[in-house]
């Protein structure tokens, strides 16, 4: 799975989560906006974390060198 595909999955998860929140806890428009903001922030945070780790391993400058004991 490449970077773009997983990013797409994150986006889809974000959209689904937003819709779920909208459907499950539908309150006043103001509250819905708050929920949407929270979901988007959370998905962005999670995506960022994943993306950083993924990108860092894409073109390795350091490779794993096994310890002597193993």
């Amino acid at each position, binding site marked *: 799975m490449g970077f773009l595909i997983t990013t797409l999955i994150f986006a889809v998860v974000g959209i689904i989560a937003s819709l779920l929140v909208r459907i499950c806890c539908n309150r006043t428009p103001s509250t819905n906006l708050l929920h949407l903001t929270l979901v988007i922030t959370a998905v962005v945070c999670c995506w960022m974390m994943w993306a950083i780790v993924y*990108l860092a*391993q894409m073109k390795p400058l350091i490779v794993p060198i096994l310890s002597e004991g193993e």
Partner: protein
Amino acid sequence: MAEGGGGCCPPMDLFRSEPMQLVQLIIPIESAHLTVSYLGDLGLLQFKDLNSDKSPFQRTYATQIKRCGELARKLRFFKEQMSKAGFSPKTSSTRAEINLDDLEVKLGELESELVEMNANSEKLQRSYNELAEYKLVLQKAADFFHAAHSSALELQRESESREADDSLETPLLLDQEISTDPSKQVKLGYLTGLVPREKSMAFERILFRATRGNVFLKQATLENPVTDPISGEKVEKNVFLVFYSGEKAKNKILKICEAFGANRYPFTEDLGRQVQSINEVSARLSELKTTIDAGLLHRGNLLQTIGDQFERWNLVVRKEKSIYHTLNMLSLDVTKKCLVAEGWSPIFATKQIQDALERGAYDSNSQVGAIFQVLHTKESPPTYFRTNKFTTAFQEIVDAYGVAKYQEANPGVYTIVTFPFLFAVMFGDWGHGICLLLATLYFIIREKKLSSQKLGDITEMTFGGRYVILMMSIFSIYTGLIYNEFFSVPLELFGRSAYACRDLSCGDSTTMGLIKVRPTYPFGLDPVWHGTRSELPFLNSLKMKMSILIGVTQMNLGIVISYFNALYFKNSINVWFQFIPQLIFLNSLFGYLSVLIVMKWCTGSQADLYHVMIYMFLSPTDELGENQLFPGQKLVQLVLLFLALVAVPWMLIPKPFLLKKQHEARHQGESYALLETTEESLQVESANDSHGGHGEEFEFSEVFVHQLIHTIEFVLGAVSNTASYLRLWALSLAHSELSSVFYDKVLLLAWGFNNVFILIIGIVVFVFATVGVLLVMETLSAFLHALRLHWVEFQNKFYEGDGYKFQPFSFLVTEEEEE
């Protein structure tokens, strides 16, 4: 982002504090009490103290407050009595209204009844204790006399027999002595009583000295402690019996007894009367016992009935007290028929407040209704966020730093996600995350039960933050999966490792290392890294860069929020001369660094980013050589450097001048307005007075210095704040290293011994270390660091936090304030 507050989207909950208004209520005096009580039920109005110049005693309702205080004292007395008797007040569900006057009468009656009952039972108890002591003395003294008597008889018999045997040999004097002995003994007086055991030695010594040895003291220890009639405490005591001769000695002995707290009891020598008095005492004792028991039962019943009602009464009294306190804040109208109240209320509550006023007037049969009107003021209203049980704890995290200025953008919204996220970056281990999750789920599931009972300080705090911990644990599980750590053990959950040996023999895997043969591990860290020699360099590089990327993103979010603030308060100066140069400055340095980091990862370039960043400042015109990441990098860097340098004076210089110009324009307008109508200008002036700061005096130098400080803070802060985000790296590294140490050096070591006993010890130590160090201490430290990153690095970009909290008059708060 669409929380501009208007335009296309509805205003977002929690982002801005509720719009408030200053309202004035004019309440007829006869309906004031009921109205205020209804407002207390509603709990959406913060009364202003209009009598702040008056002392508590000068206020209108001082006597009523005193009455309430007296009632509260009685209730405290009842509570004390109940807790002594071992009753706990029941929580009654009925909430019928009780009249304060009735309650006062009732409580007065109950109190006097209880006091009398206590006095009576105390008296009875005392005489009971005295009798009990007396009985003991009788028994013990009888033993003395009996023993003495028998030994005397024996002696006499012996001497008689001796006399009979060899009367000739016996000296006459001895005979005389013996024969005179009984006659002498008659003259001796004696006293009996009880003395506390620890004093008995001293007692004996003093007696001996005072009478110069002319006493005979006999003591007998009592096995069981005796209840002292005077103090009512259990004391270890000795029964004593003193023989003395002469009236003088008797007086001395009496005084000494008094000084030693020795209770004396009469005693007769006569055997028959002894028996009689013992019987009498026993009979009276049992009689007293039944009386006391009956009294206790009666008292218990009384306390029980009090206990049933106690909570209700307590609530009523506290409510009444708070109502009168509030009424004291209202000012009395000149006609003395109305009370005038001023207070803050959220605009959405207008209808509810009006309803409460109407109901108050109607229910108290008042002829005139209360008047509700909105006042216009320049005073800054209180800050009020409508939070629920989930958002409250997060809002408190923000409020602990400073309460938001009225309608300022609330960082609490983003804190709900970013706070647990940053925590989790430092606490990434999904095993530990699951432990935290289970602990907090326990609190959440038993929420109803736990919130009603009293918890310890620390438990209370944990319970209050249960939803924060819930979010923290969920994010920890996520970041734990990214870091691929389950109690520090990596698992191949998302496919096989991307790395393999170079050749079949795997000979150089410990020298040259493995080689990437498959596409990158799809989710999180490749499990192969764990335990390798190059693990630490790789993780350091990764986590350090991650910290910077996350930090720069969050700081940019902060700056963007400052834009929304400026937009909301229609402050175009802040947009053009604060927001834009700040954004440019931060991003031309650290935004560029972030781009370089990502670019380096994507291209796999060997460029040294430290070198690039440092020489961007030191010698920007030099060739980059092998550190070049993309063509035209030198030009881009020159432009960015130029922008950063321009941004500093851009932030510093124009704003103070523009403020000055603005102020002058306003001032001019004002002086023209003076000529129009006197009344309006007066209002304007008074408004300006209350507005403060920008009003009459405009010290240019002060404003300039202020701006200078701000600019320096931002410029230096950009560097130091970015560096401060490196704590994410440090703490997450410390966490993973600690947990791997516990796993390798405790659990695996114990496993290696192949001994069940050692294994059990190892498991116990591992569990305690994991819970104590990793789950408690590490949670705490990661929490504190996440807190700091939010308070300082994030919030100083936009948050003023100089508001004050909305504290409505509410019975809910009164109820919670218990002790």
